[in-house]
């Protein structure tokens, strides 16, 4: 099944009033749309996405789509998309009311009419969802970069969504619903019903907490993603400032090394202090006196006397006493009474352990001097603080006021980012303990608690058999899900690397694995924590092309600035890969993307392509109007936008300052 975008139209919005026709001679060739910066690429991309799934617009969001120039502001506007699925045309329209800050959807019907709601044709309504659209309509910088970042799960989610692994979750949810339904049908009465209600209340609390933690996880990931560039760039900036002077760099490295040694000594002295405190009896203290007195008292009393008790315990089990006389009940009771004055063998064991520990520690007595350890701690702390201060002083002397402010910002960011990372990597994954309750922040623990409550509910409602079967099936499905994810990720990794090898670039990066994010490695197989913008863009596009190829459904792939940061070789190879794509391709480009990309694409594909230029009409773009007239594409005088469908025009079009802006 093939799904293509044919045309879109924007009227009265923040972006100019474009009417962009993608199909050429009723065919949807790969299309490059040249839109200079400031023309509304990002707005257009977000409207294309939102026109294909039901989005709930907030009033602020609606207002953001209104024209920003006073003379262009209109009370109402719309964005309309025309698509084709299996040769059948359909429309989706978003109507904006900027006065009320509201908007509504309209969709075409099979009989050629319109209905006032969001709706897609049956063929695709079950297949297309927000996740797929977000995945395939890509702002390279915003959407691809996170796929490589630690703490982000974009790549894993892309595989799950596109390879439909998420479907297994639906089966699991269905099984869960079935189990609950059966439980509710098996009505219980009296106190059992009250117990069920209590457990159900607890289950609801656990489910609410799971939802809360999942939301918090998303917020944490979002925060880490949004602050990553600011944090890394800030750190790089400060580092480059400090490393500019090789002498200063050497001094800093030297101080850093000394600081690390001092830190290690300080940590060791604190740990040694704490371990000593726990070794009661090895340092001078009232505790030592008390415990040694206690042990010597035991020795004086010849305690423990376990052997004696053991003797009596053995004796009462015999028929006759050691003297040979018969042991009747009376005599036996006398022996038991006597035996009770001795401590039990178990207690004797405890006393022995106490004595052994004290005796062991006594051997180390006087080895530890807490006063001396205190002095060591203070001395190590002083050395550490001195190095910290020296580093601070040297750093300060090299940085401007702005840099110092930046340094403070980065320090705060680092602290907050560490907290978020701790939450994502440790807190949410802590194993279950019996002390945990429904306020736990560990998803592992909450899921365990949920299972326990469900088991209890099954017991109370006498539906254990169903519960066990569902649990069994769920376990199989979860294992299948996990295995599929691993297998598909491995297959995609191999396929991506095959494509990357075909690119035959100098100093290439490869995909090491795709777990939560895409992990990179160099030619020697050594892990690389990150690639350059161009390298990541290249691998990101190849990743998307690879998962698109796996699908029998041909969705359009839309990329905003597809070759940003790539060198000329990589651009050419990317053009070659895109030319082989079965799905529709639309690329938003600016002038700097054309060299060795759109021109090479033209050479590779002859006429099976589409080159479109769109620009906002303003006083300073009059020269483009003149140029367009030369190509027999005169603009409409009253329109604030113009669209030209001509490859030569596409090539000649160049907005002043764009190259410069790009290279920043």
């Amino acid at each position, binding site marked *: 099944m093939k799904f293509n975008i044919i045309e879109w139209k924007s009227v009265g919005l923040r972006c100019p009033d474009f009417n962009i026709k993608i199909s050429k001679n009723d065919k949807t060739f790969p299309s490059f749309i040249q839109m200079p910066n400031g023309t509304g690429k990002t707005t257009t991309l977000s409207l294309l996405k939102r026109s294909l799934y039901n989005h709930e617009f907030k009033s602020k969001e609606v207002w953001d789509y209104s024209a920003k120039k006073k003379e262009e502001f209109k009370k109402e506007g719309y964005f309309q998309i025309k698509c084709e699925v299996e040769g059948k045309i359909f429309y989706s329209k978003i109507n904006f009311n900027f006065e009320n800050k509201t908007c509504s959807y309209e969709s075409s019907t099979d009989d050629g009419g319109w209905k006032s709601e969001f709706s897609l044709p049956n063929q695709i309504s079950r297949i297309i969802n927000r996740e797929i659209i977000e995945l395939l309509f890509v702002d390279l910088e915003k959407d691809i970069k996170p796929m490589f970042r630690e703490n982000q799960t974009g790549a894993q989610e892309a595989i799950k969504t596109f390879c439909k692994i998420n479907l297994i979750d639906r089966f699991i949810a269905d099984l869960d619903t079935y189990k609950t339904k059966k439980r509710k049908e098996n009505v219980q009465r009296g106190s059992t019903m009250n117990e069920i209600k209590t457990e159900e209340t607890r289950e609801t609390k656990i489910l609410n907490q799971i939802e809360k933690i999942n939301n918090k996880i998303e917020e944490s990931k979002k925060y880490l993603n949004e602050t990553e560039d600011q944090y890394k760039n800030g750190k790089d900036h400060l580092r480059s400032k400090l490393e500019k002077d090789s002498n200063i760099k050497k001094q800093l490295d030297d101080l850093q090394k000394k600081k690390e040694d001092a*830190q290690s000594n*300080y*940590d060791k002295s*604190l*740990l040694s*202090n*704490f*371990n000593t*405190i*726990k*070794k*009661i*009896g090895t*340092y*001078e*203290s*009232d*505790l030592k*006196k*008390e*415990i040694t*007195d*206690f*042990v010597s*008292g035991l020795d*004086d*009393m010849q*305690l423990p006397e376990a052997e004696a008790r053991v003797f009596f315990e053995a004796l009462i089990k015999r028929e006759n006493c050691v003297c040979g006389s018969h042991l009747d009940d009376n005599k036996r009771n006398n022996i038991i009474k006597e035996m009770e*004055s*001795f*401590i*039990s063998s*178990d*207690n004797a*064991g*405890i*006393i022995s*352990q*106490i004595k*052994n*520990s*004290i005796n062991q*520690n006594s051997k180390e007595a006087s080895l530890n001097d*807490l*006063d001396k*350890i*205190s002095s060591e*701690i*203070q001395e190590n*702390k002083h050395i550490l603080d001195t190095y910290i201060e020296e580093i601070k002083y040297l750093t300060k002397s090299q940085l401007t006021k702005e840099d110092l402010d930046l340094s403070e910002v980065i320090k705060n960011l680092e602290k907050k980012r560490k907290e978020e990372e701790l939450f994502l990597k440790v807190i949410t994954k802590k194993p279950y303990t*019996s*002390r945990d*309750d429904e306020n736990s922040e560990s998803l592992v623990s909450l899921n365990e608690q949920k299972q326990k409550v469900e088991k209890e509910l099954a017991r109370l409602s006498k539906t254990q058999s169903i519960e066990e079967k569902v649990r069994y099936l769920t376990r199989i499905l979860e294992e299948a899900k996990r295995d599929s994810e691993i297998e598909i990720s491995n297959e995609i990794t191999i396929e991506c690397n095959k494509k990357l090898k075909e690119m035959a670039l100098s100093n290439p990066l490869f995909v090491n694995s795709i777990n939560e994010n895409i992990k990179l490695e160099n030619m020697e197989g050594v892990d690389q924590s990150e690639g350059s913008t161009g390298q990541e863009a290249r691998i990101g596009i190849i990743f998307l092309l690879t998962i698109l190829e796996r699908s029998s459904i041909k969705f359009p792939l839309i990329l905003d600035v597809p070759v940003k940061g790539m060198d000329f070789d990589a651009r050419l190879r990317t053009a070659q890969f895109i030319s082989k794509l079965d799905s529709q391709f639309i690329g938003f480009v600016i002038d700097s993307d054309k060299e060795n990309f759109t021109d090479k694409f033209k050479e590779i594909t002859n006429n099976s392509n589409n080159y479109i230029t769109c620009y906002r009409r303003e006083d300073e773009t009059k020269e483009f109007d003149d140029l367009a007239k030369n190509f027999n594409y005169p603009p409409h005088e009253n329109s604030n936008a113009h669209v030209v469908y001509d490859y030569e025009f596409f090539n000649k079009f160049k907005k002043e300052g764009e190259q410069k802006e790009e290279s920043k």
Partner: protein
Amino acid sequence: MSFKLVENKIDDNKFISCKDFFNPIRSKKDKSSPIKFDMCEFTLCLLVGLKNDRKELLKDYQFRKDNFAQRYIDEYLEIKPLITGLLLSKIIKNAGIDRNEKSKVKDIMKNALDSNDPLFLKKETIDIMHQYYLGGFCILLNEFEYKPPVDVSVFFTKYNKLISAN
């Protein structure tokens, strides 16, 4: 039975919880700190209480509703017999029993120890242990003027003085 940390002292506004007191010098906040577990907090307080022979009444305090451990965690297994010994010694002394009164000492042992309990102690003895823990925590609170210590090195320097002075 199990270990518990104190949360509140009834009718005492100055009082801060054990968790809040140790929070700034826990390893989570200060990576140099050896105070990693709740058990560390408990033990540090208990030793000060035992050393200074200071007990507090349990009824005057509220504990955290969750017990932080049912048994000594692995890192603390070595201290278990020492604590047990110190508690027995205190109980014997407080009962006014002379070290020559063997049968009375043995009675104390029988009443205080429970080999089936992971702590080796009967419930009443565990309560006594918590009384000393509270006593030690109150001494620490007093030493730090009811404010959490801000520096782990300062904490241990003061702590060493408290624990080692005869």
